């Protein structure tokens, strides 16, 4: 039986490397992926992600990240990494983080987490300049991550 997969692209489409997740999604859209795959533009979703995340077997989240690594580096993370990276406390001035979204879905909607959650986070170099394109290293990483996801599907 085929696996139901959702690919969720996060980020801001007009903020340089922060658009990496959206750009990966745009690349995937150019392929015929079949009915078991759903591509979702999460954008800067926040709480809206509670409704956007589907009941699926496998959830692949693509986003930008800033850890101080080389720009374009791809971090493969899981939910455990989100838990260890931060205490579970809402201090963002605006929206809940991913972990909070997962917990809300479980607590309120009785929706279990997808069996497999893969977070592909692309190390960003510039997330403060308004631009519809990424910096060169991140651009290359976008292509790599799109290929990686295509191989996965």
């Amino acid at each position, binding site marked *: 039986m085929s696996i139901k997969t959702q690919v969720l692209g996060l980020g801001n489409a007009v903020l340089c490397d922060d658009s990496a997740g959206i750009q990966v999604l745009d690349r995937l859209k150019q392929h015929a992926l079949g009915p078991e795959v759903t591509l979702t533009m999460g954008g800067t979703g926040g709480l809206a992600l509670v409704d956007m995340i589907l009941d699926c077997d496998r959830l692949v989240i693509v986003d930008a990240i800033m850890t101080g690594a080389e720009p374009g580096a791809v971090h493969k993370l899981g939910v455990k990494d989100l838990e260890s990276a931060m205490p579970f406390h809402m*201090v963002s001035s605006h929206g809940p983080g991913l972990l909070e979204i997962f917990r809300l879905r479980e607590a309120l909607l009785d929706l279990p987490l997808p069996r497999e959650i893969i977070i592909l*986070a692309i190390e960003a170099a510039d997330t403060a300049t308004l631009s519809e394109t990424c910096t060169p290293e991140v651009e290359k990483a976008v292509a790599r991550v799109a290929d990686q996801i295509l191989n996965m599907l």
Partner: protein
Amino acid sequence: MSQKITISPITRLEGHGKIDILLDDDGNVKDCYFQVVELRGFERFCQGRPVEELPRIMPKICGVCPGAHHMASSKAADAVYGIIIPPTAKKLRELFYNAHISHSHILHFFALAAPDFIPGPGADPAKRNILGLIDVVGKDIGRAVIRNRGYAQKIQEIICGHAIHPVGSLPGGLSKPITEEERVEIEIMAGSMVDFAQTALQIFQDLVLANPQYKELITGDTYYHETYYAGMVDENNKVNFYDGKIRVKDPDGQELAKFPVSDYLEHIGEHVEPWTYLKFPFLKAIGWKGMKDGRDSGVYRVNSLARLNVSDGMSTPLAQKAYDDLFGFFGCKPVHNTLAFHWARLVENLFAAEEVLRLATDPEITGKDVRTLPTQTPSEGVGAVEAARGTLYHHYVTDSAGMVTKVNLIVATAQNNAGMGMSVKKAAEKLIKNGAADDKLLNMVEMGFRAYDPCLACATHCLPGQSPLEVRIFKQGQLVRHLSRNLD
């Protein structure tokens, strides 16, 4: 040597908000600076684009109030072409926009503000979030929060194509009408939103106002500032989010000015400080006298409470009752208590829900004439709406082909910049004594600016998706205390 405390949500992107608190030799607060990093290349990004592209692009600049940017940008583009949009288009935009306000206010109150009260400012940080709130109010309320906020998003999606990245509004009106089926769907959702808005106000009564400690916090002096207020009103001086004139009231509640949004530059100046990119809008009639409250200072505040303060009431019955309750509770108008912004937000949420229901049942709402095509030579225009967080001005200049040559935005958070700085300073003054600061203090200082629902960390969604918070206390140049959240 003075000490320095820094509260810094640092790794987020557009936001990069940071609060510096400078202490004197005795360890008491001397000064307070609230800083954000500005996005780069905004003018260049906009220049040379067709003006009709801006309503599609502007919502992406801010990930939190895309609906507000979508509307302000559409209105500015209408003005650039000198277009009066068809009545159905205006009603659909208002319907969209009231749904946007409701979504934003529900999100802010339940996900961000309420956990400060329920379970409370001194609670374990691990519980001070929406899940901790649900532990207290119950899962049914939690589900209602998610469901009704979702309805407000869905309505925006029906009218403008996407809830987070709306595209349906453009110069002259909208790209499509709504069908009768969609109207019925909206009407059903609106009924639920009106019910939920009343529940939300009841929760505020029962869990916040009925608690003597929180009542004292809201009515007390810690977050109190007598300032001017500005906000949009309709022809009857009632609150309006989408259209109207800007009314300014003084700290005693007397009208100082009432002007069409196109005159904003005559009334609002922008003071620049060397230590921050964010400008300080002020009332030109009074002048910039520094970050001070009182009638001699040109500092004014926007957002929910400001709108209620400058208006004569609400144009819907349930919201009017809630408006009367708020001012009745304080026994005065204007209300200067900063934490009452939260209460005012819930009053406005009820108004927005009632407006959604009213517009969804308007006979014209399914009309097919939703766009007036631009025919005039484009030149210059100003559009403004009340964003959830306060008045948002878009001002565009184009060449005769409609290509953008100049853009000026004044966003709500900038207009509250001085107010936020004052509130944080006052909270810090009361809470930091002799250099002593603890985790609860961090939250109490945060509460000072959270009341304004500022747009700090909004333009992006970079992982990990939360803003770290850092407080550093320096004594004679040495780091002596380090409090942090969400930092490695």
